């Protein structure tokens, strides 16, 4: 069974609350936003991994451990 996505609308002038099914356009927009967030998350992970690899390469070149580099940097 397909889940029906809904939105809750709270009317601040009356205090009433209504549960409304999302339209197809709203669902498509949510899916696009989720896809973008996932792509951003993966890009951030890849950037962090690349930075870590570059940092390790420099330390290896210098013959230092991460702990020794931390001591040098104070």
């Amino acid at each position, binding site marked *: 069974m397909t889940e029906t*996505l*809904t*939105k*809750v*609308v*709270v*009317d*601040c*002038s*009356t*205090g009433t*609350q209504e*549960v409304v099914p*999302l339209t197809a356009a*709203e669902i498509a*927009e*949510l899916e696009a*936003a*989720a896809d973008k*967030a996932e792509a951003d*998350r993966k890009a*951030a992970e890849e950037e*962090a991994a690349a930075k870590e690899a570059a940092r390790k390469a420099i330390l290896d070149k210098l013959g230092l451990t991460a702990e020794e580099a931390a001591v040098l940097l104070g």
Partner: protein
Amino acid sequence: MPSPTYTLIASNTLSSSAASVTFSSIPNTFTDLVLKGSSRSAGGNQAFAILLRFNSDSATNYSDTTIEGSGSAASSYRESNSVYGYITNGNVGSSATANTFSNWELYLPNYTVNSNKPFADFSVTETNATAAKMSADAGLWRNTATISSIVLTDNGGNFVSGSSFFLYGIRATA
């Protein structure tokens, strides 16, 4: 402690899951708005953003600068022409400890003045694991209209039942 000018306008605690929560017909009789929440996503990551829209504006009128820390790493990023504002870690996801919720606060100063609207929010994930996150966002909605509605959307799919939202108005004292 909140002063007597700190007034609850409306609140909602979800009795079943929902993709978004809207506060509509917000009165224009306050100086600032504060929205507090405790929420969780049904989505499968450690944490998800809550997407923000004011007055249903879906144009690229939002910018957001974020700092984020996890205890072992820190990062910062920016979006200049987004179709959403963000509460970056507003929702723990189903990868976090069961039955825990993120806690967050969104502050909207001078929401009725005829100028662009800055906003700020702070969020923390509540999880009994090592990857808890905290973040702060500095945002701007480039629109001069009075804010009369706020839409909060879970970027992970659905806010789970029990997620709660409280909208307060703050009136400047004379």
